[in-house]
């Protein structure tokens, strides 16, 4: 019965992500990873024993620990990915600002 709540929650999350894309609050590209995780969450809610099965294959005794490890690893990868993107964006903003300054100076001279 508890699964029903999680299934419902997963569907709500998927719908909310799609709604955010529709309203252009979230880009299609960024939404991919969130939709992917929501679908995984939905599948785990429908087949809750699948995590036990995976834990058995990998050799983890306590299945919920495996689930939490997956969550932490996912969030770390996501965080690293965002840090990577922020660094690149910072570099590009600097480039743009310098280019604007040079152009402004050139423009003033032409006047």
């Amino acid at each position, binding site marked *: 019965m508890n699964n029903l709540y999680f299934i419902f929650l997963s569907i709500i999350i998927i719908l909310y992500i*799609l709604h955010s*894309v*529709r309203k*252009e609050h979230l*880009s*299609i590209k960024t939404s*991919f990873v969130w*939709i992917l995780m929501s679908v995984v969450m939905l599948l785990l809610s429908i087949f809750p024993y699948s995590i036990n099965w995976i834990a058995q294959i990998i050799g983890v005794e306590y299945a919920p620990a495996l689930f939490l490890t997956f969550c932490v690893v996912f969030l770390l990868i996501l965080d690293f990915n965002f840090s990577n993107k922020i660094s690149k964006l910072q570099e590009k903003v600097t*480039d743009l600002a310098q*280019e604007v300054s040079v152009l402004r100076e050139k423009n003033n001279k032409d006047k």
Partner: protein
Amino acid sequence: MKDKVLIIIPAYNEEKNIEKVLKEIKKDINYADILVINDCSTDNTREIVERNNVKCITNIFNMRYAMAIQTGLKYARDNKYDYVIQMDADGQHIAKEAEKLYHEIKKSKVDIVIGSRYVKEMGYPCPFFRRIGTKMFELLVRLFCHQKIADPLSGFQCLNKKVIEKYSKIGEYPEYPDANLVIEMLLQGYKIKEVPVKMRLRENGTSMHSGIIKPIKYMIEQLYTCIVIFLKNFGKRRVK
């Protein structure tokens, strides 16, 4: 009044191909202006373009294919061009065939004309997996929009003023503007037509879809984007 036509060519490290492409365009479509968007090439692309007296916008960092195209579209909008023809810098698109697109868009009064390799057998030596990918997206377009577009992955297109305006305003211009954009435009009520054209294979350099990982990434991204765009536009009021 004569139409203002602009040919947009995004180029990244195309020093071996660009000169031939520019000369061909100058010879075959002499009434059109040419704009090369040099996407921060590390070779002599820019020098070659300027040596050929062609307008060249150089991005200050590499923004990739789609953003280079959008830069050109913004230029076209600001300079009040009536039509834009998108061509590749690798020599795949033939200038004489571009004229067909322009004549068709004027004749049919549609918004976008796509130069298609597959609407009629034109002898394009297409790799097997690419053909399968194209077929898959053709089916997707037919499923979502109920219109047959045989080559939705073709970047060889002619756009009218309304589309130039629309594309230049898109905040999140797709990284690969192919089937996803075709689906979005059809769902929003824009009219698209295909014209059979001949194309060549690139002579020098490597394609942006070369290798093994890149095409797989492209297919997943394209498939996901098509589905989300369909859901995004589902039930929305059409533009026209």
